[in-house]
């Protein structure tokens, strides 16, 4: 199947993504276009398929049909490591630091094999979030929030053009959460694109220029946050027929 052409302004395009788990359709024909240099939000009720979508785009789930292009290259069916090296990185909803590796090793392993200055770069990143003192600590000995932050730093080692963040702030204390969002903004200023799953609507409103709403495996709305929050279908998906609780 030849993929439709992705507009050059979009760094990531997905068409008709469908993922079928033995009769249960987690994704049904998802179309998604992430603008270059944007911070795009992905919201939706629990179980709507957000994480599945990330699994498919990042290559960990290779059982989907449809088309995905990243930077105008079709990446569906690639190995996750290839996709990462190409410049598309992601974090996990629940922290997945390597527990028996030190913080520094956790970050270095994500860097390029051929980069001699990989250790200095990793230490530099730790410096930025005031974790340099923890370089020799094992991943499992960090607090949960620190683990999520390290996981975030880890994917920066490849200078990714697009970063998928799966609820990066969940379970993280407010101070670290601020550090994290500041970092996202800073990197976005330097040109990185983000696709973010987040439940806190204030963060979405504040951060995202465009928002996609996923419900039961389908994109039911997209546009800027103001448009989304008043969309009938979105309110219905979140609150059922008897809404009236205020979305934001």
């Amino acid at each position, binding site marked *: 199947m030849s993929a439709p052409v992705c507009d050059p302004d979009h760094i990531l395009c997905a068409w008709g993504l469908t993922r079928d788990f033995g009769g249960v359709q987690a994704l049904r024909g998802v179309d998604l276009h992430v603008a270059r240099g944007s911070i795009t939000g992905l919201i939706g009720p629990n179980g709507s398929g957000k994480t599945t979508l990330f699994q498919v785009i990042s290559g960990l789930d290779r059982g989907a049909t449809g088309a995905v292009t990243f930077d105008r290259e079709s990446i569906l069916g690639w190995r996750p*490591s290839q996709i990462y090296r190409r410049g598309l990185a992601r974090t996990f909803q629940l922290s997945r630091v390597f527990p028996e*590796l030190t913080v520094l090793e956790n970050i270095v392993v994500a860097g390029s094999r051929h980069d001699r200055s990989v250790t200095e770069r990793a230490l530099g990143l730790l410096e930025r979030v005031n974790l340099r003192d923890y370089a020799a600590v094992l991943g499992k000995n960090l607090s949960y929030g620190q683990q999520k932050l390290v996981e975030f730093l880890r994917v920066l080692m490849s200078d990714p053009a697009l970063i998928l963040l799966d609820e990066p702030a969940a379970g993280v204390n407010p101070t670290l959460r601020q550090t994290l969002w500041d970092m996202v903004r800073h990197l976005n200023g330097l040109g990185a694109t983000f696709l973010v799953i987040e439940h806190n609507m204030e963060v979405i409103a504040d951060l995202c220029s465009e928002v996609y709403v996923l419900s039961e495996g389908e994109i039911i709305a997209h546009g800027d946050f103001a448009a989304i929050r008043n969309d009938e279908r979105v309110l219905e998906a979140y609150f059922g027929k008897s809404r009236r609780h205020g979305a934001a």
Partner: protein
Amino acid sequence: MNNYRIGLWIGVALVALASLAPLGLNDYQQSFLLQVFLVIALAQAWNLISGMTGYVSFGHAAFFGVGAYASALLLTWGFPWWLAVLKSAGIAALLAVPLGFLTLRLRGPYFAIAMLGLNEVGRIVATLWVSVTHGGTGLTLSPELLPSLDVKYFTMFGLALGATLLVAWIHRSRFGLELRAIREDEEAAEMVGVNTTLNKVIAFVLSALIPGAVGAVYVMYTSYINPSSAFEHARNIEMIVVVLFGGSGTVWGPIIGAGTVMVLREMLWAQFPAAHLAALGVLLLVVVLYLPGGLVSILRDRQRSRPDARSGESP
């Protein structure tokens, strides 16, 4: 002086001792050391795939068996002993390439069980392929084909040393870091750019190469091989217990484990092989339940509790 330096000096001292040992030992003692080296080399091979990469193999003796048979055949066909060792190692490694691609798709217990099956398949093939292996009768090598005890001793020593240096090098290398990341969380490793399949297969092939060579020398030592001695289940047990007891995923663990287990065997239960294995079973239980890090972890924990411990831990 940091841990690395201390380890290095102890290593140099041990190498010197082992090299000079044949001068002052009788044949029996020299044979004992040869067997210690055999266990060390096998343990390091197992350590590489199971300790560092986390893929626990219950059947790595399969490659030992392949090496032993290959070597026995090559010797009878008139190849010199050293070429037989090299070729046997090569055959085991070559065989490991497709097997690695197939079995390493399996996770956790599935891999362990598949490897157990592989060892049994090796035994069945050796039994049924009578035209080459002489089936259950086995192959006997005439003494004039075999090198002297000194040659066998130093070859086995070289294999133990080589396997240890390989593990030590991998431990400090980028490759080793990627293997450890795979052990910790394979998906996450793949997600940060580690080509997990390729890394696993390379580790697997290296870990098959060593038992292939060890098996080749072993058959020169015993001058006889049959399906049950080549694919002996006890050998799998020994590899696993020695590494876990010493400390899996470490450089010194297999050496300490092999030394301890072999000396215990020699002193306590050499006359009762069943008691020896039963004791290994008990040891395995004790280690799994009470000492997950092995003997090495006791030493290391003492180090860690020192105030300056953290500064010595840069990668």
